[in-house]
């Protein structure tokens, strides 16, 4: 593998790792909320978290760009300091995180819905408070589904293109992830390099999906 390709692969992995780490806590919290609680505005929360799934990624990227631009609500002039996200690898993390969140929330929600609420009630009668019940019963029972949520989120972040190119640009060695590198190689006619990168992404995606399937299948077999 060429040096440029391995740089792109490492950067993609780093971006996807931090994006996954960043969205797991809110993703799990939202998934639990949607699965277990009747809160006002639940339908709105549901729709908002699903939005990045159906919007063109470039539209999401553009919204993020406007949000972070100098004059935007999170821009340097409004906040008084610079978040330094635009055109950096951290910007790529943000774009990937936003795009991957819906998958994590949905998978986490299903994971929680598959836990029998009567088991949680049982734990309460045995003296466990709501927090201890979540930690000792709900989480362990949902753990495979939550692991699947993390892998899916990671894979989605790994392949992110549209939002990333708008927020982080396509700077070789700095913000050029695998998906962006394939695009660049193709544009200048480096077909062999592009094909090699495609091979890498296929292998990664295959491994991730296989892992998710086996996690979910075993989770079901245990019930």
């Amino acid at each position, binding site marked *: 593998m060429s040096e440029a390709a391995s740089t792109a692969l490492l950067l993609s992995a780093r971006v996807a790792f931090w994006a996954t780490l960043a969205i797991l806590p809110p993703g799990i919290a939202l998934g639990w909320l949607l699965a277990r609680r009747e809160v006002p505005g639940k339908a709105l929360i549901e729709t908002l978290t699903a939005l990045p799934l159906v919007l063109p990624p470039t539209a999401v990227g553009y919204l993020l760009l406007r949000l972070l631009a100098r004059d935007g609500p999170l821009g340097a002039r409004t906040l008084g300091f610079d978040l330094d996200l635009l055109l950096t690898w951290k910007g790529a993390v943000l774009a990937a995180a936003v795009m991957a969140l819906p998958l994590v929330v949905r998978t986490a929600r299903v994971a929680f819905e598959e836990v*029998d609420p*009567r*088991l949680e*009630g*049982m*734990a*309460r*009668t*045995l*003296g*466990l*408070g709501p927090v*201890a019940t979540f930690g*000792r*019963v709900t989480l*362990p*029972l949902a753990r495979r589904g939550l692991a699947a949520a993390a892998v899916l989120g990671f894979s989605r972040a790994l392949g992110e293109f549209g939002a990333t190119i708008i927020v982080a640009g396509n700077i070789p060695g700095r913000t050029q992830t695998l998906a962006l590198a394939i695009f660049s190689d193709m544009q200048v006619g480096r077909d062999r390099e592009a094909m090699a990168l495609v091979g890498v992404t296929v292998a990664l995606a295959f491994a991730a999906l296989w892992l998710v399937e086996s996690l979910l299948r075993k989770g079901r077999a*245990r*019930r």
Partner: protein
Amino acid sequence: MSVRFAIDLAVPCEHFEVAVEWRSERRALGLFGPSGAGKTTLLEALAGLRRGVRGRIEVGGRVWLDSTRGIRLPPERRGVGYVPQEGLLFPHLDVLGNLRLGAARAGAGERRLVPERVLEVLELAPLARRPARELSGGERQRVALARALCSSPGLLLLDEPLASLDLPLRRRILPHLLRVREEFGIPTLHVSHDAAEATLLCEEICVLERGRVVARGAPGEVLTDPERSAALDGGGVNLLEGRVTAIAESLARLELEPGLVIEVADEGGLEPGRRAAFELRASDILLALGRPPGLSAQNVLPATVEAVHLPGAGEPHAPARVTARLGAGSRRIVVAVSPRACRELALAPAAPIHLVFKAQGCRLVASF
């Protein structure tokens, strides 16, 4: 003096409201009734797992619920040991893990029941490391009971712990329930729709029908009450409990009280010197005015008619129910006969009578 058990509740449920007022100083309470009467709903309300419950619950001197004063203890502070019908074991833990989670409440100082001791009493020690999802039905029920005991509850709530089990398994688990009662002395509310089981395990029962209390009292009296017994299997169920004194030729002698002995079939599981309980259906007993000669039935017991209850206009298919007092008079037996037989024998209160039944007519409930 603290009240042991006092409730006055209204619990909304799907088709009707379950409304129960009940006050008792007994330790072994039973909730009896057909399925759909609201028994499980009431248990869940006691455990704190139901919403919209109104009224008052006081157990062992502590108020769990008083909706007029805005008191409502969450389930984790009530200290109940709830054993639901399905057991509801934690599938991600092994047997000991389930018990330890149950023991989480009981602090080190006040903990009365250690998991190891409970495992021993319920004969579960060999299963300690078995994952919960690999257990059989009977094992699951015993582990659920053990888990509830480990939480050192102030009140045990048992929801038909034997209903899902076949007869041989029931006979094996019932002695454990009796043993738990004797060993740990925990106040218990036992839900059942089996008359023999309720009579054996409870000191006082409350009969529930469509969310309402229709009778209350000692199970031996309530469940042989001719007013009610038509709704039960075989026109009513009698529980005969005593000590096995001898076994010969596949027949066992069961001494119900000094001087009152019956013959029952021995299908295994009986031992001289041990106690056993048998179920005898009201429809399996014959009445005779005198002692009939040349009879294959092994039991002919003199008794006194207490009451004769002819079926009313509203129950055209029901038999007549005759109650009789046996022995010293403390034991009531209910017998189902046809209304014509009642007339032909001219049965009336205080008439001397003989109860005739086969040894095989007595079905073993438990030997303990």
